[in-house]
Structure formats: structure tokens, C-alpha cells
């Protein structure tokens, strides 16, 4: 019954959407309606009015920073919800996901790889305004290095490196940092989450320390995402 209903819905939706697509602006069209004054300003050459070279970073941390605050919030909600659900697991069919491994090769390689991953993650987080990547990508890498450690050395040793309470605290703190940077704009007489308009220094074009609030927010997001990933895996792999 459920299957039949889903299939009927699929057929109807497919017919409607494919008929729609036949009329859509062609793929790769250089004069598509989406190319307008908005994208022109986003794609201004050089570091422009935001002090940021990466146009995607300009949008997520400056022009549409409010959406990104919302995005960070969704992540916070998702993890908080997961943590609550996973706390106090007492079921009959309990699963242990990470007991660790005793293999010396695996452990040695992990010891070498984890710092390298972390250095690269730090590079990606701090250079989000100049090159591809940024807080979200770098933060995920930083979190992934912890996940690797957790799977190789086991949840108990990982817990000694990062206690869940500390992870939660860092996560919340980094989110508060985002809001504080936004309120900095208010204190300087501009609007919430304002960057250059509030007087955050744009810096030298292409320099590491440039982009004003964008750089500060990117740093916070990197820390927050790393804490989120680590925290989530700590809770997914064992009882609290």
C-alpha cells in the first residue's frame, strides 16, 4: 500500500517535473536569468568591498551571513537532538560501535596522520577567504581527525582526550562567538553582522589577516564544526 502510493506519487511528480524542465533555461547558458546585478556585485574583481577573494566566502560570511548563522544553528539543533536521544542508552539490542584496535601498524599510522590532517585543517580554516574551503570544510577535517583517533584507539581513550561536556561547551561557545562578532557590528554603530560597514578592517588584499569579521567568523565556525563532529561521534559510539 505504502509502496503503491509512493510509486504513484513518483510517476506524477516525474511527469510534472520533466515537462517543466523541458522549458527551463538551458544548462550553462551565459545569459541565464540568474546572471544579474546581484551576481555582478558578488563577483566584483579583486578583494572588493568585503576584503575577501573567495566569492562564495563573501556570500556565506558577509552578504548573507545571517543565513549562515541559521545554518550553524541547524547544526547545533541536530546535534543537541541527537545527544538527547542517545543519552542513557539501555536497550536490549545495544550496539558498541568503537572498541578500538590493537593493531600496531594502524596505531602508528594514525599517530602520524592525525597531526598532518590537523595542520591541513587549520590551513583550510584560516584561508577560507583566499582559497577554496573555509570554516565548514576545515572544521569537518579537524573533526574527522578526532573521529579517526576514536575509531583506532577506542572510545574510552578518545573520551580522555575530549570529554563530552567540554565538547558541548566548545560548541556552544563557538556559536556564541558568532553572535558576539555580529553584535560587534551593532556596538560599532552599524547593523548586526556588519563587516566593513561597521569598521572591521578589510586588511591588505590577499593577506592572511584580512577580511575583517569574515575571518573571525570563519575561525569560530571552524572550531564549532570540529567540536560538533567530534561530539556527535562521541555520543554515537558509546553511552554517556
Amino acid at each position, binding site marked *: 500500500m505504502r509502496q503503491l502510493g509512493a510509486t504513484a506519487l513518483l510517476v506524477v511528480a516525474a511527469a510534472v517535473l520533466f515537462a517543466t524542465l523541458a522549458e527551463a533555461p538551458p544548462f550553462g547558458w551565459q545569459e541565464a536569468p540568474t546572471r544579474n546585478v*546581484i551576481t555582478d556585485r558578488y563577483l566584483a574583481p579583486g578583494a572588493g568591498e568585503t576584503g575577501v577573494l573567495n566569492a562564495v566566502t563573501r556570500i556565506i560570511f558577509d552578504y548573507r551571513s545571517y543565513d549562515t548563522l541559521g545554518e550553524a544553528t541547524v547544526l547545533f539543533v541536530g546535534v543537541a*537532538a541527537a545527544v538527547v536521544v542517545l543519552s542513557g542508552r539501555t536497550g536490549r539490542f545495544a550496539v558498541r560501535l568503537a572498541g578500538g584496535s590493537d593493531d600496531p601498524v594502524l596505531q602508528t599510522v594514525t599517530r602520524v596522520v592525525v597531526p598532518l590532517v590537523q595542520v591541513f585543517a587549520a590551513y583550510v580554516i584560516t584561508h577560507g577567504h583566499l582559497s577554496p574551503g573555509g570554516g565548514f570544510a576545515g572544521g569537518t577535517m579537524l573533526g574527522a581527525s578526532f573521529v579517526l583517533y576514536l575509531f583506532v584507539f577506542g572510545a574510552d581513550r578518545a573520551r580522555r582526550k575530549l570529554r563530552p561536556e567540554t565538547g558541548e561547551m566548545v560548541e556552544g561557545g563557538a556559536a556564541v562567538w558568532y553572535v558576539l562578532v555580529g553584535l560587534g557590528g551593532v556596538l560599532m554603530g552599524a547593523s548586526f553582522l556588519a563587516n566593513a560597514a561597521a569598521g572591521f578592517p578589510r586588511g591588505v588584499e590577499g593577506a592572511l589577516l584580512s577580511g575583517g569579521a569574515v575571518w573571525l567568523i570563519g575561525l569560530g565556525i571552524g572550531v564549532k564544526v570540529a567540536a560538533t563532529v567530534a561530539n556527535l561521534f562521541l555520543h554515537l559510539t558509546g553511552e554517556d
Partner: protein
Amino acid sequence: MRHLPILLTVVPLTGAFLVPVLGRRPDRAYRLALLSVLLVLACAAGLLAMTGSGQTLQYYVGDWPPPWGIEVRVDALGAMLATFFAFVYLMVVLYAGSSVRAELGPAAQFWYWSLLLLLLAGINGVLTARDLFNLFVFTEIASLSACAIISVRDRLDSMEAALKYLILSAVAGGCILLGVALLYMVTGQLHLDHLGAALPAAAGSYPRVLLAALALLVSGFALKSALFPLHVWLPDAHSSAPSPSSAILSGLVVKLGIVALVRLFFVVFDWRRLVTLPLPTMVMAMGALGIVLGALFAMGQRDLKRMLAYSTVVQVGYIYFGLALLDEIALTGALMHVVNHALLKSMLFLCVGLIISRTGERSTAAMAGLARSMPLTVASFTVGAAAMVGIPLTNGFVSKWYMVLGTLNSGRPAMVAVILVSSLLSALYYFPLVVSAYFGRPASPQAEGPEGPPAMVWPVVGLAAVCLVLGIWPELPLRLLGGVARVMLGL
């Protein structure tokens, strides 16, 4: 003062993020939540005072003017809903302050306050959003935290209901995002006003894309607001949640889809063009079906919370019905009903929560003879039941009366029968409860002592009092919402 619109979301967000920073302390988290909600209520009331004089407050986040940046805008509708929703929130938080200790485990208690604040931020974000993608982001925040405040209860049925709700929310979210993508593809705009301005040109070249986008957005938001027959997730979700969560979910969260659709219909898609489509008629038919069939389902329930949940399907049907009439008076009534139902349904869920915590039962039979031991709760429940049926001097009567007038005014006298029949059906499932509470014989000997902790009883009484006040003096909100309706219809 200039920053008030953004504070509606920033204050609860900061509160929610600070909860884990302060450590795992439920008492601190509760005080933080109370403080944040009070601040939000103050901001919303200030905004209501400003917008009441016909002003609309615009706020460019990051000082980027639209269409480049995100605008947050508070109009009379947004300010009014934000104020009443914050009031409901305050009452629910006060109530939950003493009820969660009994209902939730220690780890969940501490996160519960954070999740409630996140949901409030999501609600206020949707009410103030003026950018289509921003609207989507805050809708997702609200949906996800709405599921989360169900699954905080460590019980199998809550988990399952939350999962069902979550999966259907994900479907709705996918549809909405695809709809946003299609709209952006043919217009290149995301700001609602700029979208509205770009649509006539796009309609010439890409009529089918716009139709598909409209269909996706309407089905997505209708699923999130439980328009019949997309309500299947609602009874499980709302009845298995802890009582304060049920109050917020039924009273406030289902309204968000409606508010989003109001923005879409009256700002983006010009409603004058929409009437050439079968869409208003379809929405009206689905609303009418929800009104009648939802009431029939509610009559069959033996569980108090499930009955109230089906009653929410009915009331959502009313609101959609009133909107789809596209008439000034009916629209005023429908918007008024959004406010009224928020107050009423949250109050009724809190009443039932009190009854459950006292009697330990959740069946309709538990109400028998309760009037002697729980006079304030039963009196509040009576106000709620009378308002749901539409008895004069309650706020429910005012909005239903306006919808009846609007139905006549728009030249559809036959549809009045739907409203009248449904009121009759509501009476058939609400009044037996009230009668048995006053005149019934209690099933078991009742415990002596007070009705419950005062912090749980007085919020309920407060909500009931506001319902009565709005029923006796409805002029001010009606004048405001009448103005909103005229602006929306371009009169």
C-alpha cells in the same frame, strides 16, 4: 531601538547557545530560558507598539541592502503574532519549569531548555523573514527543533512519532528547497519583494517552471502545517510529546507553514493571478475536508491528547479555509484565528497535562468529576472548549464569526454550512467532557490537596484569561489585522 527586529531571533539564539557553556545545570538553563523569553516578549511588544501605528520596520542584516543582503522585516502581522507567540511561550516555560522534572530524565532536562529557545528563534525567524532562502533556513530550524522537543521524552512512542515527523519534514524540506531553486532559476532573485516584481516577466517565458515551483512550495509548507490530507504525522507527534511541547507544537509550530504560505501567496505570487488557477479552490476544499473529517476523527478518540491533536487538524482547516476565500473579512478572521488557536490549544494541552499529572490517566474518562478537585483547571478547560465550539464572549467566537461573514461576503453561502456543521461536531466532542467534569462521578477516589504546583496552574489560568479578554474586547487586534488584510489584498 533600530535593532529590535533582529533581537527577536538573536536573543533566543544566544540563550540557547549559552546553555551548554554554563555547564550541565538544569536550574541555570531554566533561568536563562525564562530571561530570554521575557526579553523576546518585551521586544515583540515594543515592535507591536511601533507597527500598530502603521509603520513597517525594515532591517538590513550586515548593512547590505536587498537584493544583495538579507532583509528582516516586521509588519503588523509579524509583530502581533510574535507578541502573542512569545506570551504563549512564557506561560509554557513557566509551566514546564515544574513539569519537566517529572517527565524527563536529567540529561534531557538540561538540553530541553536549549531546544525550546532554538525553536523560539526558528519561529521568530519565520515570522520576520523577508528572503525566501532565509525563510527556508528558519523553517528548518523550527522543524528540526520541533521534532527534538518530542523525542526528549525517553519513550518508544515519542521516538517513533518524532521519526515519522522528521521524515515527513525532510520530504517537505526537499520540496521547498527544490521550489526555491526553480524560482531562483527563472528570476535570479531571493528577496520576496524582488521576486514578486520579477515574476510577471518570468511568467511570460517560463510559465510551467513557475507552476511547478508553486506546487512544490505549497505542498511542502502544507505538509509542515498539517493541511488535510497531509496531517498524518500530527496526531502521533502532538500526542506523544511532553505536555509543554505539545502546547507549543499544536499552538505555534503548525502556524509557521501557514505564515510562510501567506507571504508566498500575497507577496511573491500575486493572488489576483492565483485566482485564475484552481489553487484557491483546492486549498478551500482541503480546508473544508479537514474541518469536517478532522472533527469526525476527533470524536472517535478516547485519549485526551489525541483528541486535541485532531482538533488542531480541524482548526488548521479553518485557517486555510478562511485564507482561500480571498475576502477581506474572512482573511481578518483567519489571521485572528491563528492568534486565537495559538492561545486556546496551548492552554488546552497544558490543562490536559495538569489532569494527566494529577490522575495519572490520559483517557477521556479521567475528566469525570474533576471539577471539585481541580476547579481552576476545569474552568480553564471549559473556556477553551467553549471557544473551540464558538460560543459568544470567547475569542473563538470572534474569529469564526468573521469567517462566516466573510464566506457570505464572498458569495458562497453554501460554505457557511461547513463552519456550522463543524461547530456542532466540536460541541459533540468537547461538551461531554465538560459536562462529565462538572456532574460526573469520579472513577476513583480523589486525592486531597491543591490542583498542582502553582507554577503549573497559574499559566493555564493566565492563558484562559487572555482568551476571555480577546473574546470580550476584540476590537484592537481585529482593527490591526483588518489593516493587514487590506494591505495583503491591495485594497
